[in-house]
Every structure is written in structure tokens, then in C-alpha cells.
């Protein structure tokens, strides 16, 4: 019975979020969303201009989170950003390169690169721009480091599921004096990135990337829904604490 109750509560949360998301999209048509400024995204937008004008390259590293694992949310957020960055940098001479530590993710990154290049610059797609660099965290990092050093890369986006090995990637980018925007859903990686990356994103800022690069109205609505749900959780925690204090729980 408890299992069914938990399932119903879960379903209720999902349905509430879905209804809110649809409602917020409709509301945003009347009053467009505006977000607080996050310096990392401002610098990323500026770097797009530099990539296009300077003929340099963007490197997107998607981590090693498998799509069938609980970390797939961060991985999918990375894929959305990759797709959008391919579009934004399509006017440049060199297409972005994507590295990943999971085979299925590497195939999806190739798909994102191919879709973007076919839509905007048909002759530029190269199968080796989407790379699987290793299947363990450290072999992945070791394989991705040459991509940062050797490909005329001026900006790096490290987004997805990483462990502490992400510091090696951030350090390689620092040696090349290139911009590094980095985000992970892993707490250890976030702490490591705070110290080592130039533009770290903390916590759920990882999931705000789509909204900040204009990936679609549902991305902006997602941020609003997350805010609403966060307030609901805060209220539930406070009410729960008060009820416990009063001896009702």
C-alpha cells in the first residue's frame, strides 16, 4: 500500500509540474520571462562571437553519465546546450567538437553535431568531431585533454555528469588560457570546479543553460516551475518541522 501511495505522490508531483509548465508557457506569451544575470552565460555568449570572428573552436565535454542512469538529467541538459551551441557557432569556420565518456552519449553528440551542421552549414560535418574519449572517468579525462590542447579551441563547456577528474580538464583549459564554463550534477565535481574552472555553475544552474541560450520557451518555463516547486518544498519542510515541534508527527 505504501508503494502505491508513494507512486501516487510521485505522479502528483510530476503532473503538477507538467500543468505548471504548460501554464507558464501560456503566461510567458503575454509577459516574456527575464532572468537574473549569471556571468558565466554572459561570457559564453561573448565567446560565441569570438569563435565565429576569430575562426577558433568550441569544445563541449559531456561527461560520462549514462542515459540509463539517474545522472541522465545532467547529460540531457548538456546535449541540449551542445545542440544550441552548434547553431550559434554555425557561422564560424570550424565546427564545435564534443567529447564524452559514454558510448551512447557519444553517438547522441554526433547526432547533435550532424543535425546542427546540416541545418546551417551542410559541408562541415565530420564524424570525428563527436568523440568517445574513454570509458572510465580518468581515461575519459585523459582522452579529452588533447582535444582541448590540439584543436585551436578558444572556449570549453564542461557540462554533464563528472567526478573529481574534471579538474584535469579545467586545468588543461587554464593552460591554454581559454574560457571554461563548467557544470555538473555531482557535488564533489561542483566543489572541484569552483576551485579550478573560470566560470563554474553551481547547483541547479546546470539546468538553466537551455533558458539562458534561448533553446525554447519550455526551457524558460522550466526555470519558473523549478522556482515554484522549490517554494512548495520549502513550505512543506517548514510545515513539517512545525508539526513535529508541536508533536503532531
Amino acid at each position: 500500500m505504501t508503494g502505491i501511495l508513494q507512486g501516487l505522490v510521485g505522479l502528483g508531483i510530476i503532473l503538477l509540474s507538467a500543468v505548471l509548465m504548460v501554464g507558464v508557457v501560456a503566461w510567458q506569451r503575454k509577459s516574456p520571462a527575464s532572468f537574473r544575470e549569471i556571468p558565466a552565460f554572459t561570457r559564453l555568449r561573448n565567446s560565441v562571437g569570438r569563435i565565429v570572428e576569430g575562426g577558433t573552436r568550441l569544445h563541449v565535454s559531456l561527461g560520462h553519465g549514462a542515459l540509463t542512469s539517474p545522472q541522465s538529467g545532467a547529460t540531457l541538459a548538456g546535449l541540449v546546450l551542445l545542440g544550441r551551441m552548434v547553431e550559434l557557432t554555425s557561422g564560424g569556420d570550424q565546427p564545435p567538437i564534443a567529447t564524452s565518456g559514454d558510448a551512447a552519449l557519444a553517438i547522441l553528440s554526433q547526432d547533435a553535431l550532424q543535425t546542427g551542421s546540416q541545418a546551417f552549414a551542410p559541408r562541415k560535418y565530420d564524424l570525428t568531431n563527436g568523440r568517445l574519449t574513454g570509458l572510465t572517468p580518468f581515461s575519459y579525462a585523459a582522452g579529452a585533454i588533447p582535444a582541448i590542447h590540439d584543436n585551436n579551441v578558444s572556449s570549453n563547456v564542461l557540462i554533464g555528469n563528472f567526478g573529481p577528474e574534471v579538474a584535469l580538464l579545467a586545468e588543461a583549459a587554464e593552460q591554454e588560457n581559454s574560457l571554461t564554463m563548467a557544470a555538473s550534477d555531482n557535488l564533489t565535481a561542483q566543489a572541484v570546479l569552483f576551485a579550478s574552472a573560470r566560470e563554474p555553475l553551481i547547483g541547479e544552474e546546470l539546468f538553466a543553460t537551455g533558458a539562458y541560450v534561448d533553446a525554447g520557451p519550455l526551457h524558460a518555463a522550466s526555470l519558473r516551475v523549478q522556482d515554484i516547486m522549490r517554494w512548495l518544498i520549502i513550505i512543506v519542510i517548514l510545515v513539517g518541522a512545525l508539526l513535529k515541534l508541536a508533536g503532531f508527527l
Partner: protein
Amino acid sequence: MKSKSVLSTIFAIVFGVLVLAGYLFGKNADGTLSLLGELQQLILNVAVILAGFAVLVGILNLLLVHLKKVRSKQKGAGYSTILIITLVATFLLGLLAHYIPKAASLFSDTFQFIQLPIEKSLMALLVVTLAYASMRLLRRNLNLVSVIFLITTLLIMAGMASWPFLGDLPFLSGVVRPFMTQVPVVAGARGILLGVALGTLTTGLRILFGSDRPYGGKDG
């Protein structure tokens, strides 16, 4: 092309809903798997098999990347040559391991005496990298948050370490470190994890709505 995209979107939504339903209502009251639970297991098993094939495709891609490097004599082509030789050798050893016991032993030695030590040394390198990055943090980004971050790190490390001649520092290891790790760190970590969970929820919903299509077609 468009009908292919529509079909893949329909597939993704239907199977996404089925797997989600399996997570929510996958078990009967007596703890056994319900029909939805069994369906979810079946879909996930198929996904795991497909992921296995994806590994082969991924390795082929790795080989292509390095062959291209060698052919065009790019920087690091020597390392690429070593990678290709070792990749082919390990692959052959893996195939032969099922038939020749000596190959099986060599195959496991490859991991035990080459792969593991290299990964451990990279982990050791990480310590130096992080120490250097922490020192650079203040130079690059001198603000209150960076200072708090570094002071907290130093206090917790000092509380964990066993000092020469002194052993544990009673106040640091008995009071400061447990307080830091059990109160502010846990509170912050839970807040971040709640945010990550909400972000994952909305990301999943966008896929179920067919707005994000990382499996092919333009994201919407």
C-alpha cells in the same frame, strides 16, 4: 526525414511514459513486480543491450579519430599510434581470452598492471592540480565566497589530518570538523541536490513533451 523524426519522438514519449509508470507503480502490494514493473525491466534490458552495441560503435569512433590523427601527422600522432596498437592488442586478447587460458590471464594483467596504475597516478596528479587551482582561485577570483571556500577546506583538512607529534587537534577534529561536515555542509548539499532533482524533473518533462529531442531532430 520529417516522418522519421516524428516516429522517433513518438517512440521516445511512449517508452518514456512506460518507464516512468514502471518506476511509480512497478511493484504490487506484496512486493512482486507488477505488469508495469515487468514492462519497465524489459525496456531497460533492451536499452542496456543497445548500450552494449553503442560501446562497439564508440570504440570504432575512437579508432577513427586516432587513425585520422596518424594519417594527417597531427600533433600527438605518436601517442595515437600507441593507442591504436594497444587497443587492437587488448581487443584481440579479449576475444582470445575465452579460448586460451594464457590470453585470459594476460587480458586481466593488462587492466591490473597497466590501466589501474595509470588511473591511480592520474588521481595522484589530481591532488597537485587541485592544490594549485586552490592557490590560483584567490588570485583569479578574490571575493568573500572564495575566501570562505578556502578557509572551510583548510579547516576540514586540518581537522582530518594526523599532525606530527600532536596527533589529532582536539578542537578542530572534535568540534569544528564534525560541526562543519554535519550542519552547513549537509544543509548546502541537500539544497543543491533538491535543485538538481527539480532540474532533472523538468528536463525529463521536456523530453516527454517532445520539446527536447536529443535522439535526433532539432531541439525545440
